[in-house]
């Protein structure tokens, strides 16, 4: 069953350039690199419970190292096949990871987070000032050179390079958890004092995990640089560090593939929604807050909990539960989107606005119909939610 799902996903990913146009292949590439970045970040959090707020430093280091290598290749100084160049980015990030990790992992918790944040800020500040290395505001750029009959001019060809790196790298991250180092890292996350008491060098283990995480983050960055063929010091910015945290926790940090759900989902949402509404970040923020409040384990944990129920309970009652729950969520989402978009449009038009165009229809702000719709939707959501909760109680009683 598990292997079947993996095989289906692999075939699906291989077929992307055949099934979609360039524009969506590009979105898929961004989903893949964001996924690898989130997985790398989560290696550190899920095992050792170290929360890095500055992982953009490693992502950006991978981007810049890759662009520099591409530029060297373009200038005929370096003869490396193009698909191998992101590895250089990963190594550069790993080097940075060893140094930054050595210092940062002396501490844990908040202090660790502050040190990683400081390192990222430091590099960002350096990036804006050291033009020779980071290219200033306009950034550095290069162009992909052909190799072995491939021109890498189309997005589809580049997609396969990215896929060819991301899938093995993700697998490697999974298997790291099964090695002695991975087990030790889990133990450190549980109780570091005990690990030290057992005679292990916890600091060295944490540095190693940090460097591994940096390596994969750098690989993700390097792949993105290969695709964008351009990078500027904004890659080190706080939004990049924040987005990987968001991706990981919305997706679910407790499950290996959780960050992938978050990263791929939010990247896709960003690509599709940002041209539709200017408020899409507000929705993502709201989703994050709700997620942390009601399902701090993330989407993946929700999914797995549900999967477990499917094995234990009669499915007709579960279908009902999921339908009701889904309806409630849908109704609340529709209400929120309608009211927020209406308000935003009314506010931008100014105090004199009487009607607002939304979803291709004109809504009069004084008409009762305009306000009856969200109220009715919210009521419907409320009823569905109540029914879902009742259904859930009934199921829980049946199990108990």
């Amino acid at each position, binding site marked *: 069953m598990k292997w079947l799902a993996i095989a289906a996903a692999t075939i699906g990913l291989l077929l992307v350039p055949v099934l979609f146009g360039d*524009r969506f292949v*590009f979105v898929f590439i961004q989903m893949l690199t964001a996924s690898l970045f989130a997985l790398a970040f989560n290696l550190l959090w899920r095992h050792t419970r170290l929360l890095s707020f500055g992982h953009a430093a490693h992502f950006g280091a991978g981007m810049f190292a890759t662009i520099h290598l591409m530029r060297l290749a373009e200038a005929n100084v370096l003869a490396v096949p193009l698909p191998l160049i992101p590895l250089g980015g990963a190594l550069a990030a790993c080097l940075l990871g060893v140094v930054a990790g050595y210092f940062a992992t002396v501490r844990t918790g908040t202090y660790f987070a502050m040190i990683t944040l400081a390192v990222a800020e430091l590099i960002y500040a350096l990036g804006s000032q050291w033009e020779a290395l980071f290219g200033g505001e306009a950034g550095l750029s290069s162009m992909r050179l052909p190799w072995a009959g491939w021109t890498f001019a189309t997005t589809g060809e580049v997609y396969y390079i990215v896929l060819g790196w991301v899938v093995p790298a993700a697998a490697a991250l999974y298997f790291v958890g099964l090695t002695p180092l991975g087990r030790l890292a889990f133990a450190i996350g549980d109780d570091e004092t005990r690990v030290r008491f057992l005679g292990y060098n916890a600091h060295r283990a944490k540095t190693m995990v940090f460097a591994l995480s940096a390596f994969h983050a750098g690989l993700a960055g390097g792949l993105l640089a290969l695709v964008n063929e351009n990078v500027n010091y904004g890659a080190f910015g706080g939004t990049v560090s924040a987005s990987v945290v968001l991706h990981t926790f919305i997706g679910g940090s407790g499950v290996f593939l959780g960050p992938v759900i978050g990263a791929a989902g939010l990247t896709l949402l960003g690509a599709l929604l940002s041209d539709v509404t200017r408020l899409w970040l507000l929705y993502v923020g709201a989703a994050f807050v709700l997620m942390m409040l009601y399902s701090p384990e993330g989407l993946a944990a929700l999914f797995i909990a549900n999967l477990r129920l499917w094995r234990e309970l009669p499915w007709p009652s579960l279908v009902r539960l999921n339908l009701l729950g889904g309806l409630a969520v849908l109704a609340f989402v529709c209400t929120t989107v309608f009211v927020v978009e209406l308000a935003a449009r009314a506010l931008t038009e100014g105090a004199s606005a009487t009607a607002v165009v939304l979803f291709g229809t004109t809504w009069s702000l004084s008409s009762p119909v305009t306000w009856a719709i969200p109220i009715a939707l919210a009521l419907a959501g409320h009823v569905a939610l109540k029914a879902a909760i009742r259904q859930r109680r009934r199921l829980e009683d049946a199990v108990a």
Partner: protein
Amino acid sequence: MKFGVLTAFAMTAVAAFVGTPLPAAAQLKVAVIENLSGPGSATNRLFAVGMKNGLTLVNKAGGWKGQPIEYLEYDSQGSSSVAADKVRAAIADGAHILVSGGSSAVAGQIVEDVRKQNLRNPDRRVIFMNVGAEASDFTGEKCNFYSFKYAMNAEIRVKALVTAMKAAGALGDRVFSINQNYSWGKDMEAAITRYAGPMGYTVVDKVLHDVSKVQDFSPYVARIKSSNASTVITGNWGSDLILLVKEIGASGLKVQLGSTFLELPGTLSSAGASTLGYYTADFYLPEAGGAAAKALFDRYKAIAGTLPTTSEVKSVVMAQMLQAALANVELGPKVDTTKIALALEKAKVQTPIGEISMRAADHQAAVPLVVSVVSKDASFKVDGTDMGFKPVKVIPGPEAISAVQETCKMDRPS
């Protein structure tokens, strides 16, 4: 795809049978890629607003020989990576011309993407029109036949500023240069130093400070004081400009100030009366443009509901440049971007403060600048304050433009 080919074939066959009607002219699509939701979007999105309304005005005035130009809009979120995605989306949606202005980081990505798109897809070339990203690289190392820069740069701004301040007797002979420590600030510092000799002042001290991080400018003001400078020249924007000006005002230091971004929305209202008497250089129309500017502003207000800001005016004028160029390009079944690019090089537009033209050598526009002084006598008040910008001197485009950079090596179509 197959279906598309078959349909096209069938339609051609039908057309051939019925008789040969004129092929429908392809519609020109202009895609704005701008920061609409990220940090700084409040000021950056004005370029998009201006372009949208500018194209509406152009379409009202006949568009491209009677055919309307289509406006598309994409959100770069202020990130160059997202911008890379939106460039592909825009091209996939059929855009022929890309427009951006809010950030040199995003423009840097677009310039490069356009260059590569045109190398790899010679049958689907696109044009980039840069309305506000001022990094000098775009007409230097990154200059490209299909990229047109209507934005100014540090040298253009400084040249105009010191020329006008000298003529007004406000320059003094001891200049203190304070700028943000990144490519723009460094460009500014270099320009301030370069014009010391020709304009007869000495740069008594130079400071580069962190961008948008300094909360307390008093150490810098103390340094200005101890340098005994007569004039401070700065390329700062946003909080770095507001806090600097306020600190100078609070310290009671008597010093003249020349700047480049005082007219950005919110600056005058935040910095307050300390700005009175200070100079700024920009493409700024309202008072200097007289009746012609008023007519343009009225036309704009009729469709937008508000008077345009400087950024919006820049977009509108750029849309007019495009229309002027299109007047010399024949409509056809396919939009020929190379012909449009050649026409853009020759296009000229008479703005209320003078002519704008494009220099073919590096695709830097010769834009006229207005150097103005913050005053309560200005006829257009800004930001709801009782202050505004009173024009001191208009520098015509050909005088304002900076020299062609040696690093610009442009491949022209043969």
